């Protein structure tokens, strides 16, 4: 089991560019999440999904989009990147109990 795999690990993006952070889990978990963590701060929920085809907004969804076409994949799309989106992004999955996190994607918008 690879667990939760995120790509890329590091990325520098220019203002106004778009990109997709990939997330895949091989544990057959129904629940998946995207969090962002600004330096020295806590985790803020961007979007989450309770199953394929179902997504919902978290605390800070503006500027992001997600899709969940399969149980395994939960990509996060950044449209028109802004400096305020510089952060570490964590994808996670859960059975409803323990949450398993990916290793994070460090994104800098310049």
């Amino acid at each position, binding site marked *: 089991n690879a667990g939760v795999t995120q790509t890329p690990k590091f990325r520098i993006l220019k203002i106004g560019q778009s990109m997709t952070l990939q997330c895949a889990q091989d544990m057959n978990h129904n629940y998946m999440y995207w969090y962002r963590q600004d330096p020295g701060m806590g*985790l803020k929920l961007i979007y989450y999904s309770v199953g394929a085809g179902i997504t919902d907004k978290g605390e800070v969804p503006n500027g992001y989009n997600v899709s969940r076409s399969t149980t395994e994949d939960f990509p996060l799309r950044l449209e028109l990147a802004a400096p305020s989106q510089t952060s570490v992004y964590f994808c996670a999955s859960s059975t409803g109990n323990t949450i398993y*996190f*990916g290793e994070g994607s460090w994104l800098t918008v310049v």
Partner: protein
Amino acid sequence: GQQVMQIPQYQHVQEGEDFTTYCNSSTTLSNIQWYKQRPGGHPVFLIQLVKSGEVKKQKRLTFQFGEAKKNSSLHITATQTTDVGTYFCAGLGGYQKVTFGTGTKLQVIP
């Protein structure tokens, strides 16, 4: 929406001293989980509490869930340098929406 606050935000202790972090939710929780994040790493699950008034121990760590299921605490006895990191509580609300607390960063001075 649901808010989960933790205090203190930072704590520096001498090695061997005890440490406690407190977690308070604005709403009643189905359960509460605790995670540890080492510097530069991703959050790792420690424990889940489900029942009102529940107390669980893991070696030097003691976790409590409040009677009203709106607060929780983590107590570490005789801290060690390996305890360094940020400790997060996470509350499960409706529809599997997991909200993380603001975190307590623990620094242990040898």
